[in-house]
């Protein structure tokens, strides 16, 4: 499979693939990296937001 890298498209067979996940209450992050020897040549991130991150709290006045 061809992967877009800092050096143009490369065959992934030539690269070391690393993946990881970060999971917390706010989001789940899946990342994928391709390394050419010691050089990072590709990193993509897929982030899934789990819940709202902002909200307002309107209040009607009491009398």
């Amino acid at each position, binding site marked *: 499979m061809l992967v*877009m*890298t*800092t050096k143009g498209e490369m065959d992934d067979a030539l690269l070391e693939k690393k993946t990881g996940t*970060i999971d*917390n209450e*706010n*989001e789940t*992050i899946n*990342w*994928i*990296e391709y390394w050419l020897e010691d050089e*990072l*040549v*590709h*990193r*993509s*991130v*897929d*982030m*899934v*937001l*789990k*819940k*709202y*991150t*902002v*909200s*307002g*709290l*309107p*209040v*009607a006045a*009491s009398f």
Partner: protein
Amino acid sequence: MANTQSMCTSFLGELMTATHNFGTAPTRGSSAADTFKAALYLASATINASTTAYTSTGEVTSTNYTAGGVNVTNANPPTSTNTSATAGTGYWTPSASIVYGSSGSPVTFASFDCVLIYNSSQSNKSVSVHTFTAQTVTSGTFTLTMPSNTTSTALLRLVTT
């Protein structure tokens, strides 16, 4: 029956469609939904509740990333739902993931941790700031998948209790 004080739940959703105007409203050319955009910001930037409009200061830069970010897909209008006899929620969520870059047009971002949703139809006025764990992208893509559009998880919620 008894009367119960509350801000009306329908009002919460209608706030998001500019149905009510207590002041001086901007002149609109049509009743169509505005265009909203999503811009990414470096972890070193200062984007917060005081941000009144889109700014390029602190925004990520990259080949294949245009200053101002990308359009937000908005196929679903805001909704309001009573969550109890005395409370309700008005809410809205973009109807598709927000995507930066593609396999043929990759992006490279230094450490970023924030997306600003703003209204490009109304002088780029700010809507909301969303932060997340800082990430980098190298000749790749960044996909921000939205939460479920429900009263408890929607991206934007106006809530009465």
